């Protein structure tokens, strides 16, 4: 462990100022389930933790039909999957947040942290992508919003500039007839990092898919929005053929690496399998 300074920020402005002054070695501390491990194992040079959990906006979960859902960047997973509105309207967020870590970790780990860690295998990000989340960012120059699919830029890297941090995630209210599902593949049944993961949201109107988003993870430097997979579905009734075409699009979009968690062939194949399974299960939710 390195010697690390810890400051508890009382406001968004104070957090931003501390992060800017702290420079490269300053990191936001939400749940800390990634950054504390990185500091202890010295895989990331950190000399200042700026704890944002005292800022109400980063911890709140709020919903209204017009503005949709807002989840504070530091709100822990267990509060997200325990929220009645989330369970009712955004069950795919429950899929993701109940898979990140074990029960103890879920008491601390946040979706904002999962996003800012920017792992290609993050179990939160494909779901955020198919739910059309926007990332609310605060910084020295005020606030800005970024579409979540544009947030990650490389493994461990994202669009945040010096002094910027994620305050919250905003989700539109799902349109009628929508359903979304997230799945990951791991060799065991818990406590693992995805070999490949995927999320799909579909909207089904008059028996036909009117809108869709498919996202796959751990198969490229960043989680991918697979536009071709959605295009294979939209404008037609859901069928084995359209689902197979979407799965093929995901396999084609995947550009995975070989590593200790999976091989290229395995990941590419799983991108197709999980695309198919998430489409079918999202459609079941849309129909429910």
């Amino acid at each position, binding site marked *: 462990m390195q010697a690390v300074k810890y400051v508890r920020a009382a406001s968004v402005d104070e957090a931003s100022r501390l992060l800017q002054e702290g420079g490269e070695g300053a990191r936001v501390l939400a749940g800390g389930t990634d950054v504390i491990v990185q500091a202890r194992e010295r895989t990331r040079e950190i000399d200042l933790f700026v704890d944002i959990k005292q800022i109400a906006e980063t911890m709140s979960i709020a919903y209204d039909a017009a503005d949709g859902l807002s989840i504070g960047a530091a709100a822990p997973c267990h509060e997200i999957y325990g929220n009645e509105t989330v369970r009712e309207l955004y069950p795919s967020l429950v899929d993701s947040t109940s898979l990140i870590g074990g029960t103890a970790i879920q008491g601390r780990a946040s979706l904002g942290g999962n996003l800012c860690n920017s792992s290609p295998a993050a179990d939160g990000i494909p779901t955020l992508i198919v739910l059309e989340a926007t990332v609310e960012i605060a910084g020295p120059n005020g606030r800005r919003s970024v579409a979540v699919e544009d947030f990650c830029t490389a493994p461990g890297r994202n669009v945040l500039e010096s002094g910027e941090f994620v305050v919250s995630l905003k989700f539109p209210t799902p349109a009628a007839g929508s359903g979304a599902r997230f799945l990951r593949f791991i060799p065991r049944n*818990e406590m693992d990092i995805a070999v490949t993961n995927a999320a799909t949201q579909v909207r089904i109107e008059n028996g036909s898919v009117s809108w869709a988003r498919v996202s796959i993870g751990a198969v490229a430097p960043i989680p991918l929005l697979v536009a071709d997979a959605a295009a294979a579905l939209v404008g037609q009734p859901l069928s084995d053929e359209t689902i197979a075409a979407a799965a093929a699009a995901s396999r084609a979009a995947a550009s995975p690496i070989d590593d200790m968690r999976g091989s290229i062939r395995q990941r590419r194949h799983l991108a197709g399998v999980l695309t198919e399974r998430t489409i079918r299960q999202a459609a079941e939710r849309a129909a429910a």
Partner: protein
Amino acid sequence: MVTAQSEVASQYNVIGTRPIRHDGVDKVTGAAQYGADLQLPGMLYGRVLRSPHAHARIVSIDTSKAAALEGVKSVITNADFPRASDDVIDTGEGSAQLNWLLDNVIASDKALYKGHAIAAVAAVDHHIAEDAIELIEVEYELLPPVLDVRDAMLDTAPKLHDGLKTGEMDGSKSDGDSNTASHLRFAKGDMEAGFADADVVIEREFVTSMAHQGYIEPHNGTAYWRADGTLDVWTSTQGSFVVRDSVAPLVQLSPSQVKVTPMEIGGGFGGKIPVYLEPLAAILSRNTGRPVQLTMNREEVLLATGPTSGTYMRVKMGAKRDGTLTAGEVYLAFEAGAYPGSPVGAGAMCALAPYDIPNQVIDGYDVVVNKPKTAAYRAPGAPQAEFATEAVINELAEQLQIDPLELRLQNAAVEGASRADGFTYGVIGNVECMQAAQDSSHWNSELAGPNQGRGVAQGFWFNIGFESSAYAQVNGDGTVPLVLGSTDIGGTRASIAMQLAETLGISAEEVRPHVVDTNSVGYTQVTGGSRTTFAGGWAAYECAMDIRRQMAERAAQIWEVDAAEVEYGDDAVIRGPADDEGNERSFGFKELAGQLAASGGHIVGRADVNKTSSGPAFATHIVDVEVDPDTGKVDVLRYTAVQDAGTAIHPAYVEGQMQGGAAQGIGMALNEEYYYDESGDLKNASLLDYRMPTALDLPMIEPIIVEVPNPGHPYGVRGVGEVPIIPPAPAIQAAIADAVGLRMNELPISPRAILEATLPEEG
């Protein structure tokens, strides 16, 4: 839970019951002291610098900047140790050549695996020690790594050790240097005739990965080099005497100058026999005059302690159409890691052990590679060797269209059968295990759906005796403190205390077992080889008989009669001849215990045994799996473990051993592997990516205890810890074949491996 208790158990009062373990309360309340819990006044904290390279010559080490850091008290390298000889010491489940042992503790001229210790520091706190090792400058000359046993055996392979020759069993050595440290061969019969007799011959190749024991407590070692020149060591170990006898020569002390106190141990499975940190702590303490504690983190445990061997194996077996096995030819090449000493010898002896096959040749090769030096792991060598042979037996059964348990029964080794290594079995429970499996509800159930399959496999392990000591005194209140040298990794305080209690005729709770240091009990071999309940129980039996004799003598003295007229009954009543008035004379155990002090002093019973006999154990496992053909994932649906325990002293702990062994075997079968890149970097040195099964990955493992008492033990004990790790891999391999028609001859059979075997080539 099915437990088949034989009638034999009912002859006992304590044996066969399930008392609460004596160490249980301390463990569940957190009061038990593990190695890293130890705090000594003035203690320093150590840290080890490890090689980032798998194979490199160490050109220079500059420790000056680290030594100059404030708070750093000592920095050491291999040069701080006395030169070690090439003498070989016994380490219980193996042996160690001292110079190789020292080089593994801290590298001399070469780093031979990623994580190999290069230097160590002692500082006033952990953080300074961590900072200090980053200031040590090491210049390496990189050498090509040798990572696979087959590559290592090639003449053209880079050699890890100058001067290492291949040793043969007749004592001869190869002319040139080799990475093959030794070759052994066990043979009997006539192979040509054996294969000529066969109607079906199957020959297959097998590959297994290195796998780690995965004990949850990392290694630790604390040492205090006293001003009088004696050394105290505290550590989590399976053998405090082996630690004493390993550390002493490395630091040029005699064993009598070293006292080792075994701390509570959080798992070992064979991996906590070798020393790693203790000699470093000793030299750092000598240099500083202060106690020094070193602990490993998980990455260090996986990188730099001893997993079991990765292997390449070939098995060729022949059978007649009626199922009679006619010949078995086995080739085993085992990775020893960086220094010689794989468990290939034990693997070779176990390979065909469950079967009576007239013609056999088993070749074993011990081969060094640029990976950590292997250590014992639960039935060392057997899970690999028997995976290969059992897989071929199962394939033969399929080809011959004979039920796999029937084929095994038809060829089962029974009393009088001999192995190729010359050992002849006495009374064994091989057939009884197979029959209990046949009779089980599992074997007689139906599979429930598509992509499901069932597999079965047999396993054998030796279970040997050797040295154990048990000393016990009789308290005035009739309780009996028992001191032991065996560290308790599997409930052995309870199982040994129960045998003492049984012999004395008192309750398990009245015996108070304590694990003590090397100055407080006689020499005791490691807790390993499934020997502790066997030999430790034997020592407890003899210790109790010593107490019985002394109690009878004391009663005779009190009654003023001839000792020969006094008898200590199995009901713990000491009876003498009637007195002058014709009244019966007797003492209860407690009653006499209360009179010991006044009648001449307390009694201490003592036994130091060295039993070279064994209690061979067999196991039969049945497993149902379901394979997801789309993802390659294998779910274990149902699991039954049948095993001959001889006599189950504490059936709950026997069942626990059977379940734990099966769980580890399932891990080796499905996901556990040392995953190296081409440079020899271990890429999965964490429990996130080294995938042991979790509770959610296993069904309830149903144990069925068979009891065929071992006539070579006072209570019929065989030893139970190791054999249950052997059958899981071949049983699962067979179940996968049954489910989806895929015979996977490489371990682990991970989802990746299944997909790679089934996906079409990418165009």
